[in-house]
Structures are given as structure tokens and as C-alpha cells.
């Protein structure tokens, strides 16, 4: 008599557990989706604005830019059908009037502490860097983070010819590829230079191919 009763109560508890958890899950899911939908426009706007600001800075205020996608080692103006655009490697092409003035490219490699994420403008016609901005880093505050805050260092990337070469402060002969590094943050400085050089070395064939194929991008 008692055994079935126990089994039954067990069954009801199990059912109740599922009901409670399921209910809670449903409510939670609902709340999250609501919040997600409510904040989505602003988050995306923020993100877009941040990207835009960075691109405008490193390409020196283009009139407009378009987003290109790296697909199978080629640049494409449109993501392939069905692919999630946000998960593809992206490159931005800036225009002043109708002329393309250069590509904005993001890159990340190890710095002193951890990865340094940066974006830079590159003019393939002259092989020069137009400008550079560090997007994210964990370098030492006061030393390595001068790659962001030292305007002199950032200005070093204003129209330098590739490949970049780091020289110590107060040295060098003003040859075109020289970038004066920050005293006390040689490693971070050198990392920035290395990141740009490596990135261009990898992307140059793609960019050149794209330019060759698209006359207006010259």
C-alpha cells in the first residue's frame, strides 16, 4: 500500500521540479529576450559609432567608407549568402569624393602583457600608413599604454612609408619608414610596428588584387 504512494509522491515531485524549473526558465528567457530586443538598437549603434570613429580617425575623415569581407582569401564587397557577416574578417575602404583613399585594417598580436588590438589606415597606392589607433590593450598603465595616450607616438604613424622600422628616441636619420619608439616602452612600441608590418604583409596581395579588379578603388 505504501510503496505505490511513495512512488506517486516521487513522481509528483519530479513533475513539480520540471514545472518549476521550466516556468522559471521560460520567464527568464522572456525577460532576457525583451531586454535584448530593447537594447539591441543602441548597442549596435554604439558599436557602429565606435567602428566609424576609428575608421574616420585612421583614414583622416573619409567622406564615406564601405565594408569589405575576406572570403576565401579574396576581398568581396558582399558576404556570401547565408554567412554571418559579423563573424567574417573585415576590411574597410574609405573614399574622399569618388576616389578611394585607403583601407582601414584591424589587427591584433601579442604586446608586452597581452594582445594589442589596433586599427590603421593604409594607402596601397603609395605604400604608406595614414594613421593608427589602438583599440584595446592591457599594457602597463603609464608605460606601455602610452601607445594610446602619447599623442607624439600616435602622430609617428602619420604618413610613414612601409615597411616600418622602430628607432630609439633621439636616434635615426629621418628616413621615411622610421617610427620613434617610446622610451621605457620599447616593447609595446615595437609590437605596434610589428603588428602593422605583419598585417600588411599578409593582406597586401588581397588588397592589390581587389584594387586591380575594381578600378574605382585605385
Amino acid at each position: 500500500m505504501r510503496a505505490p504512494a511513495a512512488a506517486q509522491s516521487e513522481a509528483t515531485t519530479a513533475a513539480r521540479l520540471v514545472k518549476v524549473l521550466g516556468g522559471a526558465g521560460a520567464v527568464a528567457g522572456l525577460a532576457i529576450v525583451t531586454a535584448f530586443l530593447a537594447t539591441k538598437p543602441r548597442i549596435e549603434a554604439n558599436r557602429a559609432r565606435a567602428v566609424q570613429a576609428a575608421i574616420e580617425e585612421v583614414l583622416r575623415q573619409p567622406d564615406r567608407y564601405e565594408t569589405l569581407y575576406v572570403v576565401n582569401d579574396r576581398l568581396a564587397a558582399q558576404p556570401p549568402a547565408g554567412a554571418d557577416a559579423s563573424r567574417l574578417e573585415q576590411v574597410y575602404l574609405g573614399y574622399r569624393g569618388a576616389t578611394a583613399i585607403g583601407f582601414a585594417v584591424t589587427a591584433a598580436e601579442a604586446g608586452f602583457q597581452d594582445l594589442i588590438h589596433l586599427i590603421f589606415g593604409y594607402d596601397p597606392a603609395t605604400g604608406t600608413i595614414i594613421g593608427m589607433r589602438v583599440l584595446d590593450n592591457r599594457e602597463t598603465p603609464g608605460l606601455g599604454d602610452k601607445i594610446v595616450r602619447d599623442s607624439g607616438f600616435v602622430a609617428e604613424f602619420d604618413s610613414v612609408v612601409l615597411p616600418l622600422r622602430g628607432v630609439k628616441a633621439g636616434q635615426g636619420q629621418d628616413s621615411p619608414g622610421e617610427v620613434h619608439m617610446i622610451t621605457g616602452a620599447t616593447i609595446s612600441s615595437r609590437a605596434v610596428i610589428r603588428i602593422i608590418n605583419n598585417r600588411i604583409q599578409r593582406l597586401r596581395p588581397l588588397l592589390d588584387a581587389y584594387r586591380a579588379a575594381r578600378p574605382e578603388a585605385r
Partner: protein
Amino acid sequence: MGELFWILLSAMVVNNFTLAMFLGLCPFMGVSARVETALRMGAANIFVMVLTSLCAWALNTFVLPHAPYLQLISFIIVIASLVQIVEMVIKKVSPALFRALGIYLPLITTNCAILALAIFQTTRGCTLVEGLVFAVGAGLGLTLALVLMASIRESSELADIPALAKGTALVLIIAGSLSLAFMGFAGLLSGG
């Protein structure tokens, strides 16, 4: 290969979860009194981290592209359930191993280092292999910090620590000193 080695070292010493990233501090404070327990906790951590890395990769690849807002909830629920399942399996298969590690498993699941591992792996867009190496590195780093702290604490049990500093204050100051020492690894393999 070089890249993987850098990920390992970076997670283990350069950006040590405990000493440089402030993750998993509660267990670090709680179970660092004895070397023996520290070692077991460390082993359990490495194990759970590897599992987590697998879960996170699977979720990132198959589920989250469709519902990004579920990231957090799915991470925490999937990791917690998986650890529980594994715990039960271990209990069945190897009671000895369970006795050695088992009691630490539930402690770890709700620990921020584990969740952080999943999140970092996601934001960095790790591949499966990279994620696994990252998890092993982070776990080893955690174990290293735990064991060092435990052996220091054991030896300072015999010292005349001022009454004021006994307990957590001293542990934090030792952690600070360890963290200072770990700064020596900064920039490792990043090409000076």
C-alpha cells in the same frame, strides 16, 4: 606551434588567472592552507577547465550564433550540468579518484575562473585546439599559484605573524608579493 606555446605560457604565467587577472580568488583564499588540498583543487580545476572549454566551443559553434543573448545562461547551465554528470561518472568508475577530487568539483563550478575561461575563449574567438590549450594553461597557472600560496602558508604557520596580519590580510599581502614576482614574466615570448 609557436602560437599555441605562447597561448599556454600566457595563460599560465604572464596573465595568470589568479595573480594577474583576479579570477578564482575565493577558492584561492579558501583552499590554499594545505599543499595537499591545493594540489587536488588544482587538478580538479584543470579538469573542469578543459571540460568547460569543450562546452564553450560547442555552444559558440552550434548554438550561440542563433541566440547570442543566451550566452551567459547557457554557459553557466551547461557547464554546471556537465560537471555534475562527470562527477557522477567518476563516482561510478573510480571511487578513489572521486574521493581525491570529487568534493572540489561542485565548489569549482560556480567559480568565476571557470566562467571567465568560457567568456575569454569566446571573445577571443578561439578554435577548439586553441581553447583547449588556453584551458590547460589557465588551469596550470591556477594550480601553480595555489600550490605556491599553500606551501608559503604552511611554512608561515611556524612564524610569529603579528596578530593584526593573521588570516586573510597576510594571504592578500603574500598574493601581492607573488603577483609582483610574476610581473617578471611580462612580455614573455612577445618578441623583445
